[in-house]
C-alpha cells in the first residue's frame, strides 16, 4: 500500500521559513553598517526589538490563541523586530522599543490572526505609533561615529535639514550641511538605525531578488516614481526642489522600497496591482516630503497604500484566452 494523494506529487523546496530566513540574511549588511556607524547602541536596540517581538508573539500564541502546536520558528517575528529597530534612532530608550514591539506584533500582526493575515506592515505600524507618541525621542538622531567632530552628539537627518531650510525660506544652495552623495550612498549620514546605507540595503535587495523572494517590480517602481516625481519638480525649479538623487539616497527610501513595501502579506497579489501600489507609495512619499509637515513620509505612504491593497487585489491578472486576437 502506498500513499495516495492528488497531484502534484513533488513540491518546490522554498518554504515559509526559508523565505523568512532569506529576508533576515538580506537585512544583515544594513545591520552591519549601522553597527559600524552607530556603535554598540545599534546592536543593543536591534537585539531588544527582536527579543521583545519574539516574546510577545510567543505569549500571544500561548495565552490568547491558546494554540498547542505553534511555531515562532518561522522567523517573521525576527524580521518585524529587525525592521522596527531599523526604523528608529539607535539611541532610543529601551522601553520605547518594547512598546513599539508590542504595538507592531500585538496590534498590527496578531490581532489580525498572525502571519499572512495582517493588513498593515507591522514594523511600520509600530514605528508610526512611536513617532506620534514619542516625537522627541524618535527624532533625536545620533551622529555617525565618523562624523562626531562638529558640535554635539546628535544632528538632523539630511531630509530634516532640507525641510528646515525650505520652511525657513532658503533655497537649496543656501542650505548648509547637506551631506555629499558618496556619504549618503555609503551611509555616513544621520538617520534611523538601519536606513542610512543605500549600498548595504541594495546588496540585501539584490540577494532577495537572486533568491526569488521578491520580484523587482515593487522596489523599482517605488524608486522610479519617486525619482520621476521629484525630478519633474527639480527641472521646473532647481532652487526650491533638490536633485531627485538626493531623495532616493536619503531617509527611508531604500529600506522602504526594498524591505517594507515588498512585505508579502501587505502587498498586492498581481503584478499590475503591485505596480500601482508601488507608484502610489513613491508619489505619496514625495508629496509628504516636498509639501507635508514631516520631512520623511515613506512610512505613511506605505501604510496608506497597504490600506488600498484589498482594493488592488480586485484587479485580476490577465487571463489566458481573454486576449484572443490581440496578439498576432
Amino acid at each position, binding site marked *: 500500500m502506498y500513499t*495516495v494523494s492528488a497531484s502534484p506529487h513533488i513540491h518546490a523546496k522554498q518554504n515559509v521559513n526559508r523565505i523568512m530566513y532569506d529576508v533576515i540574511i538580506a537585512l544583515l549588511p544594513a545591520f552591519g553598517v549601522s553597527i559600524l556607524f552607530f556603535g554598540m547602541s545599534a546592536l543593543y536596540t536591534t537585539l531588544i526589538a527582536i527579543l521583545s517581538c519574539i516574546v510577545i508573539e510567543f505569549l500571544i500564541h500561548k495565552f490568547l490563541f491558546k494554540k498547542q502546536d505553534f511555531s515562532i520558528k518561522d522567523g517573521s517575528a525576527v524580521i518585524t523586530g529587525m525592521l522596527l529597530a531599523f526604523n528608529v534612532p539607535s539611541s532610543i530608550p529601551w522601553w520605547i522599543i518594547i512598546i513599539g514591539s508590542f504595538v507592531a506584533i500585538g496590534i498590527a500582526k496578531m490581532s489580525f490572526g498572525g502571519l499572512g493575515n495582517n493588513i498593515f506592515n507591522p514594523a511600520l505600524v509600530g514605528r508610526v505609533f512611536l513617532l506620534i507618541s514619542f516625537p522627541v525621542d524618535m527624532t533625536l538622531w545620533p551622529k555617525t561615529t565618523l562624523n562626531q567632530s562638529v558640535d554635539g552628539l546628535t544632528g538632523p537627518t539630511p531630509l530634516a535639514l532640507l525641510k528646515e531650510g525650505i520652511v525657513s525660506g532658503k533655497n537649496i544652495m543656501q542650505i548648509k550641511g547637506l551631506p555629499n552623495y558618496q556619504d549618503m550612498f555609503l551611509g555616513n549620514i544621520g538617520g534611523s538605525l538601519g536606513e542610512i546605507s543605500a549600498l548595504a540595503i541594495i546588496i540585501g535587495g539584490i540577494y532577495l531578488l537572486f533568491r526569488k523572494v521578491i520580484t523587482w517590480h515593487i522596489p523599482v517602481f517605488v524608486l522610479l516614481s519617486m525619482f520621476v516625481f521629484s525630478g519633474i519638480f527639480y527641472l521646473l525649479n532647481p532652487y526650491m526642489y533638490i536633485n531627485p538623487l538626493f531623495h532616493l539616497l536619503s531617509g527611508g527610501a531604500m529600506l522602504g522600497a526594498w524591505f517594507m513595501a515588498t512585505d508579502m502579506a501587505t502587498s498586492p497579489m498581481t503584478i499590475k496591482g503591485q505596480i500601482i501600489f508601488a507608484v502610489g507609495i513613491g508619489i505619496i512619499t514625495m508629496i509628504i516630503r516636498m509639501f507635508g509637515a514631516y520631512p520623511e513620509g515613506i512610512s505613511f505612504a506605505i501604510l496608506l497604500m497597504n490600506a488600498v491593497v484589498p482594493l488592488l487585489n480586485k484587479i485580476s491578472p490577465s487571463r489566458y484566452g481573454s486576449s484572443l486576437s490581440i496578439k498576432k
Partner: protein
Amino acid sequence: MKLRKKYAMQTFTKGGIHPLEHKLSSKQPIEMLPIPEFVQISLSQHIGVAATPIVKVGDSVKVGTCIGESAGFISARVHSSVSGTVEKIESIIDTSGLYRNAIYIQVHGDEWESNIDRTSDIVSKIDYTPQYILDKISQAGIVGMGGATFPLHVKLSPPDTTKPEVLIINAVECEPFLTADHSLMLEKAEEICIGISLIKKVLGVDSALVGIENNKPDAIALMQDIAHKYNGIGIVPLQIKYPQGGEKQLIEALLHKEVPSGQLPIVVGAVVVNVATAFAVYEAVQKNKPLIDRVVTVTGIEIPKPSNFLVRIGTSIHTLFEAVGGIPQNTEKIISGGPMMGKALIHSHMPVSKGTSGVIAVPYNLAHRDEPFNCIRCARCVQVCPMGLQPYLLQLYSEQRMYEQLETNFVLDCIECGSCSYICPSSRPLLDYIRLGKNKVSQIIRKRKQK
C-alpha cells in the same frame, strides 16, 4: 534551419515553473520487456464510454485480436496485447483509481494476428483516402497517448463548422522524469514523420508543427534532419518550462494564439496530437497493427537503472519495476504518469494502459507534503498560474463553498497543472480544493442546463 531560427526558444507567456527535470532515463534506448505471464486489459483505457467485451471466458485470442468493441460515439476499441486464453473478466482498480472492468488473459506463446506486419521495414507510401486512414485509426483503437486518452478518431473528425489549419504534434514532454516520447523520437523519427503525414492527410492541413523542449537537443536535431524529407513538417525547439505540454500552452507557444475560455483548440484552427500517438497511427495504417504496446518510462530517484521499455498494454506495473530491480524500500508513492499531473497508485499491481507514459517510484522526501501553513500572500501561485487565474482566491472560495464566486473567477479554466501547489511555500492544498470546486461548479452548471 530557417524554422529553427524563426522560432528559437519560443514558449508560452503566462506563468509556468521550472521543476527539477530528473530525466534520469534520457540516455536509455527502448528495451523490449519480456512478454508477461498474464495481462489485465482494461475496457476503459480512454475517455468516454467503456468498450463492450466481445470475448467470453475460455476464448483463445491472438496478439491484435479485438476483444472490446467501441460502445458509443466517444469510445475506442480494445485489443489483446498477447496470445492466450481469457481467464476471467473482472472488476479491478486501474491507474485512474476507479473500478473498471478488465479482461484477464493468461499468456500462451506469442502468436500474432496474421494480417499484422511485424517487420521493421519502413513503409512510406501514403496514397490513401482520408476516410481510409480514419477508419484504420478507429479500428486500431488509438487514443491520445500523452495521458488524456481521448479517442483519436473523434478528435480527427472535427465538426463541419470548423476548419483545421494546422496540426500540432506535442513532443514537449515537460513533466519531470518522463522520457518515453524522447526515446521514441530518437528511435522512430522516420515512422513518426510518416504518422504525422497521415494525420495531416486526414485533417486536410498543409502544415504540422512539432514542439520539442530544448532539453532534448538530440531529438530536435534528429527530427529536423528527418522532417526535411517530408513536406510541411516544422520542428520547433521550445524553452524549457512547465506546463508547456498543456494543449493550450503549446498552442500559444507555437501559434501565438490563445484558445478562448471553455472552447476547444479547433476554434483557433489547431489540432494537437501527441508524438507517441503519431507513431501509433503509423503502425496502425502502415503495419496494420492495433494499439497493443507503448513505450513506458520506469524511473525514480532510487531506481538503479531507470529505463524506457516497450511494454504490452495490460502488463502489471509491478513487472515493470521488477525489470529495473524492484521497488525501492523507501518508496512513498507510485505514480502513473508524470509527478506533476500523474496519479498516485494504491498498489503496484495495476495494468499499464494506453495512456501510461511512465511509472515513477517517489521516495518519502520528494513526495512528502509539509503541514499547511497560513497563506502569507506571497503571490507566487498567481505568478506561476499558466491560465492567469488566482489560485489562492479559488482555494478560499472552494473551502468556503462559495461556488458562484468560483464560477465568476473562471475556476473551470484551470487545467490542473499543479504549478500553484508545487510553488506554494506554505504547502497549502491549493489544487486539491480547486479540483473540488471545479467538480461542484460543473455539477451546478449541468443542473442549470437541465432546467
